[in-house]
């Protein structure tokens, strides 16, 4: 992904396996959120390709899809680093908007739906049930009829995840979900993410791609970690291996130049 003269993400290639939590980590400005924006259609990559394969075998080339089809057909959902809820709408309404495309499949019978009959009403009842399920999972059931903007910060983060899950995604992209959470909330988040990984929206599990700065969260729940620095991948592997990787340590701690050279030399000797 290139912005004018700046290459924000350079020859990055990685795989997020189905049913796993893959974390993308890296220092500020490494290009993590840019990767998300390419994945979810906010940016169109200037080169390369991004492919999603569903459990059913359907394949989608994301860089060719219009944005609304990425969520609707390729079934990728995301959350945002700075929470983006529909603040003036209630918690439940936020979850109903997320099910827009499923509800609109009855679109041809719109006049009936306007009068309050027809199969649409059954679909809406199902949508409310699905919303209620995720409200229970995220502990927001008691606040269902409150304005989303009136929720405390941690609850807003959980609501954003619940909203993403209501689109029934195959891949859930979370941009710093633990930012600003206290340790207890962070622990609850880990449990929620494990649940999503194993059960997903339809009981078949859901892959998760995660950007996170909180290493305790990353190390606790990731199955696989990709490390970016200056738009390039510098490491890729299991959490235990990443923890030991000298390049990662160097990128994070910002070592002195000689030290970096020494690390480089050490790596070459191996």
């Amino acid at each position, binding site marked *: 992904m290139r912005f004018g003269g700046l290459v924000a993400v350079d020859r990055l290639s990685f795989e997020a396996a189905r049913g796993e939590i893959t974390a993308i980590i890296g220092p500020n400005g490494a290009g993590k959120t840019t990767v998300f924006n390419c994945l979810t259609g906010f940016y169109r990559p200037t080169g390369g390709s991004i492919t999603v394969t569903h459990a059913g075998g359907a394949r989608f080339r994301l860089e060719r899809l219009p944005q609304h089809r990425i969520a609707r057909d390729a079934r990728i*959902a995301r959350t945002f680093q700075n929470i983006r809820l*529909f603040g003036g709408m209630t918690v439940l309404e936020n979850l109903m908007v997320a099910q827009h495309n499923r509800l609109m499949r009855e679109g041809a019978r719109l006049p009936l739906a306007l009068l309050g009959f027809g199969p649409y009403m059954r679909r809406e009842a199902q949508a409310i049930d699905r919303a209620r399920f995720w409200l229970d999972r995220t502990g927001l059931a008691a606040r269902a009829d409150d304005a989303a903007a009136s929720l405390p910060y941690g609850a807003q983060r959980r609501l954003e995840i619940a909203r993403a899950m209501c689109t029934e995604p195959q891949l859930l992209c979370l941009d710093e979900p633990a930012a600003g959470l206290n340790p207890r909330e962070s622990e609850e988040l880990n449990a929620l993410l494990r649940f999503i990984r194993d059960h997903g929206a339809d009981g078949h599990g859901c892959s998760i791609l995660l950007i996170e700065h909180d290493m305790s969260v990353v190390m606790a729940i990731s199955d696989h970690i990709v490390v970016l620095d200056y738009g390039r991948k510098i490491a890729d592997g299991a959490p235990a291996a990443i923890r030991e990787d000298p390049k990662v340590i160097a990128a994070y701690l910002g070592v002195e130049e000689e030290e970096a050279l020494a690390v480089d030399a050490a790596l070459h000797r191996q």
Partner: protein
Amino acid sequence: MARAASLAHLVKDAGLAALVALGVGAPLLGLKTDAADRGLTLVPRPGLLLAAVAAVFAGRLLFGLFLANRRAAAARVADAPPRIGPSPYARIGRMVAPVLLALSVLLPVIPGVGRYEIDLGTLVLTYVMLGWGLNIVVGLAGLLDLGYVAFYAVGAYGYALMAKFFDLSFWAALPLTGLFAATWGIILGFPVLRLRGDYLAIVTLAFGEIIRVVLLNWTTLTGGPNGMSGIPRPTFFGLPFSMAGGEGTFAGFFGLEPSPLHRITFLYYLILALALVTNFVTIRLRRHPVGRAWEALREDEVASRALGLSVVAVKLTAFATGAMFGGFAGAFFATRQGFISPESFTFIESALILAIVVLGGMGSQLGVAVAATLMIGGFEVFRGLDEYRMLVFGLAMVAIMVWRPRGLVSSREPSVSLGARRSVGGEHVAEGKG
């Protein structure tokens, strides 16, 4: 102690204001020039000056006391535990809509209501309908549209032209005018899909002017500035209203004495029905995914896109639906007036409709209806004030916006709920940047 100090402070403040009033007033009010026999003479008017200064002093003092009281009350409220359950205002608020509806249905049969009142009611309802139509675009979808009157014009001219060239009756033309206006809504929507906020407003403003200027200059089709006259009046399901009476007319069929009031009453009920259809469709659409998508777009466009909403489809449906109701209202306007010209579709009309929506509280159906009644009705009530009418009217608008900065009804009713429905406070609701 603090109270006395603040009182002294207020008196000092009021004295200062009185001093300024004296300074400004002395030459303006205190001296009057009279054209006497030998040139101008100055006549001092100390009494008037004194009265004005006293009025300023008293006004400033009372205003200060009012503000201090309010601050004290606010502090008390902040200390008090939050009140549980609906406030008495909310209970009264729930009564407003049914009462207004009953009043509008019964208006023509209320004793003492004559032709003037029914005509005024028709005018008010036309603006209620236009306000509700624009409310879809501005209030729900958050798209600032300054050219709404264009769709009103499309509806009016659409009906007039169809009647002239294809001899279509009002009832046959009505759905078509809505369709035309919706098409124009989409035509406007396409180029402005990527625009937001001020830029969107400017382009929609230009669109409104383009439609008007085309109507003004396409003389062969629209008659240009001379307008179009002889637009057929509506019939009562095929029965014309005629003063002559006779077999095939409304009066003749029902065995009534022919009266001009029949047509006026019929027009009143026609616009009432059209407005209620607009209201019904809007209320139902808000509970439909399409309406929820409009509101989601107003709240956060980026999040809507991430959830797989097609922003193109959402914006175009909002423009088209809003325009359609504008078109219906236009067709009604044409058949009511029997004559239309581009002069009826100037920018000030768009501004008036937008003012109704903003004053009513964006997105609130009841607020828009009340605001339309206040604005159009108020305009008539102040007719006796002649040249001061606009001044009084402007002051009233400023006062309302100071008192209720987010419109008369600022809270938002959720479209779906698990428990008891609670309205969302206006402070949470976004105004839309699109």
